[in-house]
């Protein structure tokens, strides 16, 4: 299994075979996580630091659990509270970290590109846990694993991504991953929440939900941030729900066996109807959380293998 990357910064740098290798390994970790003895020593002796410059309970917990199940020493640093407020720059933070000799660094940051910048300055493997509106690679990978397990394949599927595409790193990473795996991607949302020139990414764009959902295999809903609900980008929460909220009625446009996904946390009654979210025949939202831990275990395992082999630096991408 080859995964010739020093860091996991985004889906952009990954090839089709990188993605397949990672998902194959993650499948094994799903089995491990479901067994009685949920532990491996793949990361034994390694130190994992989770640095979250932006609050996140779910993603941070998922990375923490993934590290612990693989035997790493895990430390959480809530950066929002400390150094940023003292005026320390990101590069200085990186230098401080270097002195602590971590092996795996998991970073979330509110600025696009900040994780790339940090990765240039530290000596360890960096995993992007979300940077600004840029990328959130482990989310796209866990979505891919969920789809592959539910649909039996990860190619030639029709997949709709609905909601605030413009501000969503989840959408960007998913568009790239699903495109690389040769799926048909449809984006649905109000034009004010569509990024410019998005069609150049090889997607179809719809501003009508029923039209966009026509015969799709997968419906991926995105979270609408509270601060974007009123007036600025959309007229109101209730109009948004009326036009772009996923309801049983709109879902009838999709294929009868279409699955419903959401990266969480959900705004019930804003982007998704509560009953659909809870419908175990359609919704795979809980499974996404489960796949998240397995995918993160696989990603850290692969990067750690490279760390241990220590191949010459210039062979990395």
């Amino acid at each position: 299994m080859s995964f010739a990357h020093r860091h996991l910064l985004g889906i952009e740098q990954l090839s089709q075979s990188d993605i397949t290798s990672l998902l194959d390994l993650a499948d094994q970790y799903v089995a491990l996580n479901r067994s009685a003895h949920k532990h491996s020593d793949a990361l034994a002796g390694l130190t994992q630091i989770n640095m979250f410059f932006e609050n996140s309970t779910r993603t941070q917990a998922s990375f923490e659990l993934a590290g612990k199940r693989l035997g790493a020493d895990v430390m959480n640093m809530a950066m929002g509270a400390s150094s940023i407020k003292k005026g320390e720059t990101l590069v200085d933070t990186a230098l401080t970290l270097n002195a602590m000799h971590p092996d795996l660094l998991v970073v979330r940051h509110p600025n696009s590109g900040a994780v790339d910048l940090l990765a240039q300055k530290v000596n360890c493997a960096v995993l992007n846990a979300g940077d600004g509106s840029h990328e959130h690679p482990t989310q796209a990978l866990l979505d891919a694993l969920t789809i592959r397990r539910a649909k039996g394949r990860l190619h030639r599927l029709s997949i709709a991504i609905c909601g605030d595409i413009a501000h969503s790193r989840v959408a960007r990473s998913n568009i790239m991953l699903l495109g690389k795996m040769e799926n048909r991607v449809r984006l649905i949302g109000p034009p004010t929440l569509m990024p410019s020139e998005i069609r150049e990414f090889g997607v179809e764009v719809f501003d009508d939900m029923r039209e966009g959902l026509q015969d799709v295999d997968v419906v991926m809903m995105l979270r609408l941030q509270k601060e974007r609900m009123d007036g600025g980008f959309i007229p109101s929460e209730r109009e948004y729900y009326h036009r772009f909220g996923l309801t049983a009625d709109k879902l009838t446009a999709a294929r009868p066996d279409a699955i419903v996904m959401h990266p969480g946390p959900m705004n019930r009654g804003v982007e998704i109807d509560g009953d659909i979210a809870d419908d175990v025949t359609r919704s795979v939202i809980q499974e996404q959380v489960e796949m998240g831990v397995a995918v993160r275990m696989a990603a850290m395992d692969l990067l750690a293998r490279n760390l241990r082999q220590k191949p010459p630096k210039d062979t990395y991408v």
Partner: protein
Amino acid sequence: MKTLFTNARLIDPEAQTEITGWLLVENGKIAATGRNEPPQADEITDGKGLCLAPGIVDIGVKVGEPGERHKESYASAARAAAAGGVTTMVIRPDTSPAIDTPEALEFVKRRANEDSAVNVLHLAALTKGREGREMTELGFLLDAGAVGFSDCDAVVTNTKVFQRALTYARSLGALVIAHPQEPILSAGAAVTSGKFATLRGLPAVSPMAERMGLDRDIALLEMTGARYHADQITTARALPALERAKNNGLDITAGTSIHHLTLNELDVADYRSFFKLKPPLRSEDDRLATVEAVASGLIDTISSMHTPQDEESKRLPYEEAASGAVALETLLPAAMRLVHAGGLTLAQLFRALALNPANRLGLKSGRLAKGAPADLMLFDPDKPFVLDRTTLHSKSKNTPFDGQRLQGKVFATYVAGKKVFG
């Protein structure tokens, strides 16, 4: 004292010619040029077939005095200018504090006289603190030596304030330099909207914001009749508006920056903040349209928009990093890319680098005419080199051309006939 340059390719932006011949300097002024037998002189410089052109008149150089002398002082900027063939720096007032009073202007003029071997002229702020609320003492500032007024990249959002400032400036015959940009649309933007901005997830501004800003300013010129220069026109969509305004007889000229002529948005690549500029780099189509507009003369001037920034203000996440790049020394070699690529002739290039900016400011320099100050540069248009930013004379090394192959090197720079570099 007579100095003679022989065997040089004389780049004459007025005649739009490029001929091999001689140039005679007497008492700091150009006395004669010719292509036949050269006259007698006290001192003879063999041009060895290199180009002899008027020194660059660079409108819009930022020096860190007062406030940020660690980024650039008058002494370091002047060394960089001399090394880059820039014989006249026109200094921006966007210092901290801004140059918005006669007293502040006198301070920077004194600093410039103490430390600069090249000519230094100053712009003053159009509004107090560049805040766009109240106009500065335009009359006193003119008396104190300001050659024009500009709030630099701070757009005067309040149209009434801008209209009054333009009206007042017109009565004084003063030049106003503005940054055409719709300020609300472009607020917070780090890149130009499009596929690249979407891929990188960065806050973006439509190139249309430039045209909207220019359109507003043109309407105000029709109302006020002021003398106006747009600091940087960088998009194709703004060009027809500029052309119409010129055809309608408004007193309007426009410049562009060397970076927008030679780089595009994709150069930002993986968040390289040395490529963060204001306005942001544009698409390749916009770049090509801008080059064409310089060749046709629609865009009048090219400037370095020299903006020194220290490492600390650049080594930040892209959105948070400071904008701007140093360019005094890389202006000529970067511009030579356009000549080598066939986009501009040398005579067209020096029309935009020297003649037009000098004319706009009412200077006699910027040309190879008899009686003009002997502000000259001798350069090899073909000499290749790889730029190492640590060799730059500027205190700040924030150039986007680090490690790039460039062609064109300044051999000597003369101000009023006196060699200041080489």
